[in-house]
């Protein structure tokens, strides 16, 4: 069975280590914050200028001056710091953020990613995504393995305009966990009850399957 969005987020959260600084993109990545294991602490960075993002506010706590990078109302956790956008991206570009989790349209075997622009559709912009993929030490891409027509999003070479080149090392999809290295996707884990054949079939780029491929644990 392909994973739900929540299950992908649960698996993402297992990547975090105690003490990690993490930037979560909009969508599935943001959900991961709900599944951080009890025995570790991570600190969330929001690129509009907040380190130590807390939960959404209660109705009483809502403050127009306190938002996250998705422009949603938010709170600051105890021990948070707030700073300007140049400082925020100094942190990101300078490699101080341990993990970035973000969605993508396509990833290829060289670790390049396309996530912001589909020619022919209105282009709204890359926001902070290009800075994040250029700067974070570890990037996890979360997405469905294939689009709704069954076309693979894991390609030999991205076809859409890129967000960054040679920067993605880990992908968590609804079907599998994969590492990207040596110009191939390396299958690491498969979703419960998903066969290696299905993963092979939905992976257009070179796929390496070595040894036993365990089922994901949550």
């Amino acid at each position, binding site marked *: 069975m392909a994973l739900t969005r929540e299950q992908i987020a649960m698996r993402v959260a297992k990547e975090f280590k105690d003490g990690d600084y993490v930037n979560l993109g909009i969508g599935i990545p943001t959900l991961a914050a709900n599944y951080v294991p009890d025995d570790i602490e991570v600190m969330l960075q929001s690129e509009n200028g907040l380190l130590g993002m807390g939960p959404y506010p209660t109705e009483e706590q809502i403050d*127009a*001056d306190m938002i996250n990078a998705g*422009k*949603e109302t938010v709170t600051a956790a105890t021990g948070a710091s707030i700073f300007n*956008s140049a400082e925020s991206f100094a942190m990101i*570009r300078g490699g101080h953020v341990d993990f970035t989790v973000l969605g993508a349209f396509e990833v290829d075997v060289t670790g390049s990613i396309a996530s912001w622009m589909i020619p022919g559709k209105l282009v709204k*912009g*890359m926001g*902070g995504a290009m800075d994040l993929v250029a700067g974070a030490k570890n990037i996890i891409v979360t997405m469905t393995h294939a689009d709704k027509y069954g076309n693979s999003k894991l390609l030999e070479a991205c076809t859409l305009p890129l*967000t960054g080149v040679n920067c993605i090392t880990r992908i968590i999809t609804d079907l599998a966990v994969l590492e990207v290295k040596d110009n191939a996707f390396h299958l690491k884990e498969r979703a419960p009850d998903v066969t290696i054949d299905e993963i092979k079939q939905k992976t257009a780029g070179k796929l390496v399957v070595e040894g036993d491929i365990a089922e994901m644990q949550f």
Partner: protein
Amino acid sequence: MAGFNKVVNSYAEAMAGLTDDMTIIAGGFGLCGIPEGLIAQIKQMGVKGLTVVSNNCGVDGFGLGLLLEDKQIKKMVSSYVGENALFEQQLLNGELEVELTPQGTLAEKMRAGGAGIPAFYTATGYGTPVGEGKEVREFNGRPYILEESITGDFAIVKAWKADKYGNCVYRHTAQNFNPMAATAGKITVVEVEEIVEPGELAPSEIHTPGIYVNRVIKGTFEKRIERKVTRS
């Protein structure tokens, strides 16, 4: 001894000197921390052909989106736009030009403009459409692209408190691009919620030293929220 008193009492004074075809650098992230009254004044002045450097372009009927209504903006330099229908329409009509710039590069370009640094190298955007036509150079084996700084004829800034010297502090995440914008305008105008006495702001807690600021005006703010989300 009025040389350091930067407080002005009307929006007309605050934006005096703004003319057609100028470049404006605007603070704000989405609708958070935007100089609402200064934007309204620009709308009222009716200046056209503006280049506006701002992370976003507001929404229909609020923020910088207001300046689209009378087609005052010729070009936006932003990281994320199109949160409003008018924007899309003018873009598709070819009435509006957009230079999409990664958010961190945009912030750094403003800072560099204010800091007398004409250009810097960054890995952001290398190998993407953003890097096209830009110089590529390797440092320690990694390729970077050359990005040039940005300055404006005017900078419009929203701060929380300022004193008459122009020293400013920002509130929460309404800080965002405002401090960089403040450094990068030939004329920097700050709209604030409160004007305080010199000395009330602790010297080490001032976010924007007054040297960057030319005019300060007290405004009133609607502070519209773009995406209200609660814990439930």
